[in-house]
């Protein structure tokens, strides 16, 4: 846009009024409420000095907390991706009594305060709770492949890393359903018919034709659920048991550091969490943009 004849303009002219006022309010509020406070966080973390930052960042307790937060969030997001996809499919494709009610209920985790969900889940999955008491006799050895996150399931969910996952599944569920649903609704029926006429089985049609089209939205939902789960606090702390090194999540560690007036320590852990989250969200967006470039909106 910058050339000799048309000088650079940072905004297009318009006859509508109020641009300055509206943008002024927005930028001022954004700066005061969000940007300056976040900058203070980074500043505080940096002020700790390299040696202290390294010490906090690599302390076993910090690493254990970050690892728990990220792995539990990852598995919760995976569970939500699978069940959220099934749920979205069922809600879009099938007609059954109560469908609209269930559709509405999916948003419950958005509406229910996290502390309420937290104490409720803790009560349900506690050893004497409705589900916890059913699970107690089911003790078995559970190990998750490709990670060292393996724990013998001793019949307990509440007050273990499994409990953390349960809470994170609860709060992440709507993200996947709500991002996948509109995409499923807009799928053209002729593509499926074409596949069937070309001789593809229903299975092949779903896995080779439909799912690849849904994948970008599924990935978005996954990343949103994951990002939310990593930072989640209220619904987790009641069910987690909060045992240092075992079921202590990173946000809780920040609170603990803060209660010990270790502001720099809290800031360092918080900064690490934010940076890792932002990197993951950015990666998700890049994959999305690539898919959109290639497949377009035919």
């Amino acid at each position, binding site marked *: 846009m910058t050339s000799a004849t048309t000088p650079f303009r940072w*905004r*297009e002219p*318009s006859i*509508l*009024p*109020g*641009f300055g*006022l*509206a*943008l002024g*309010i927005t930028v001022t509020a*954004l700066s005061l409420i*969000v940007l300056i*406070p*976040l900058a*203070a966080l980074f500043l505080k973390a940096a002020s700790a000095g390299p040696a202290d930052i390294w010490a906090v960042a690599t302390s076993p307790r910090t690493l254990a907390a970050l690892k728990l937060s990220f792995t539990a969030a990852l598995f919760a997001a995976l569970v939500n991706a699978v069940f959220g996809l*099934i749920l979205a499919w*069922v*809600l879009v494709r*099938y007609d059954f009594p109560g469908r609209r009610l269930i559709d509405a*209920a*999916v948003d*419950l985790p*958005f*509406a*229910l*305060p*996290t*502390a*309420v*969900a937290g*104490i*409720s889940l803790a*009560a349900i999955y506690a050893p004497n709770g409705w589900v916890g008491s059913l699970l107690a006799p089911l003790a078995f050895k559970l190990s998750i492949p490709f990670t060292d996150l393996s724990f013998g399931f001793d019949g307990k969910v509440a007050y273990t890393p499994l409990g953390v996952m*349960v809470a994170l599944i*609860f709060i992440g*569920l709507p993200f996947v359903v*709500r*991002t996948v649903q*509109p995409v499923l609704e807009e799928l053209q*029926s002729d593509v499926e*018919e074409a596949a*069937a006429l070309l001789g593809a089985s*229903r299975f092949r049609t779903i896995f080779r034709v439909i799912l690849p089209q849904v994948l970008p939205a599924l990935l978005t939902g996954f990343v*949103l659920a994951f990002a939310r789960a990593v*930072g*989640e*606090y209220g619904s987790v702390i*009641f069910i987690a048991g909060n045992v240092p090194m075992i079921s202590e999540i990173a*946000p809780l560690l*920040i*609170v603990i550091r*803060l209660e010990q*007036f270790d*502001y720099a320590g809290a800031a360092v852990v*918080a900064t690490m*969490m*934010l940076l890792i*989250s*932002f990197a993951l969200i950015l990666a998700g967006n890049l994959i999305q943009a690539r898919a959109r470039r290639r497949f377009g909106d035919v």
Partner: protein
Amino acid sequence: MSDATLPTVSAAMPARSSGRARGESLAVQIVLIAISLAFLLLFLLLPLVTVFVEAGARGWEAYRAAITEPDALAAIRLTLLVAAIAVPFNIVVGIAAAWAIAKFEFTGKNLLISLIDLPFSVSPVISGLVFVLLFGAQGYFGPWLQAHDLKIVFALPGLILATVFVTFPFVARELIPHMQSLGSADEEAALTLGASPWRVFFSVTLPNVKWSLFYGVLLCNARAMGEFGAVAVVSGKIRGVTNTMPLHIEILYNEYMGAAAFAVASLLAGLALVTLVLKTLLEWRYGDVIAASRRH
């Protein structure tokens, strides 16, 4: 004009009603529906029902006592007060942001949108932490505040700041896509007819977007009243003074007063249900105007 693009009965029907090439077998359908229902039952319905069951476990009198004792009432008052300040603030900023973004073209617009969304990807605990770092006793402005006998952290201003941070994107997020899809033609027409800028806004723009504004306010309010992590960090949890309802629930729960905790929780769960019902009604009734973003 072709058959498929015409909204005639004959054209619309075949694509929808055909089950031959598209459906799964009835057995598969039943299995998938059963899985979905079981999953929702376990992860959504059970927690909700538990709140009300546990709340009533000790009977009506205990329930009434739990929600009318002075600390509980103080928590309810404080929660309402925080929401009553934070939500209107976000309405004003959300409308301003949507006006600037939807009605004008300017450099850095996409960056601005991303920054407005930023609080969604920040842990609530960090949302509280940043204000402690700024205004806490050892924070950047701590000494100055102490010298002037001002309190932000562990006081009402801190609760409000943390709540505003957490709920910052809600209103703007609903308004921006809706106002963008409406364009500026209505406003331009009103201006050429000689209406004053404020009149244009209040009698043209606002009525056009009222339902998506309401939708955004609804979600913003639910989050403001239910926020836990961010306010937990800045509150100091002084009973009767800086305890909001979610924090009061935590304290009761940690003191093994489960029934009382669930009693207060049932009030917030009721709020959640009302929010959900209103939200659903809005989506059914005005789903076409409330633009896409149904994800937070």
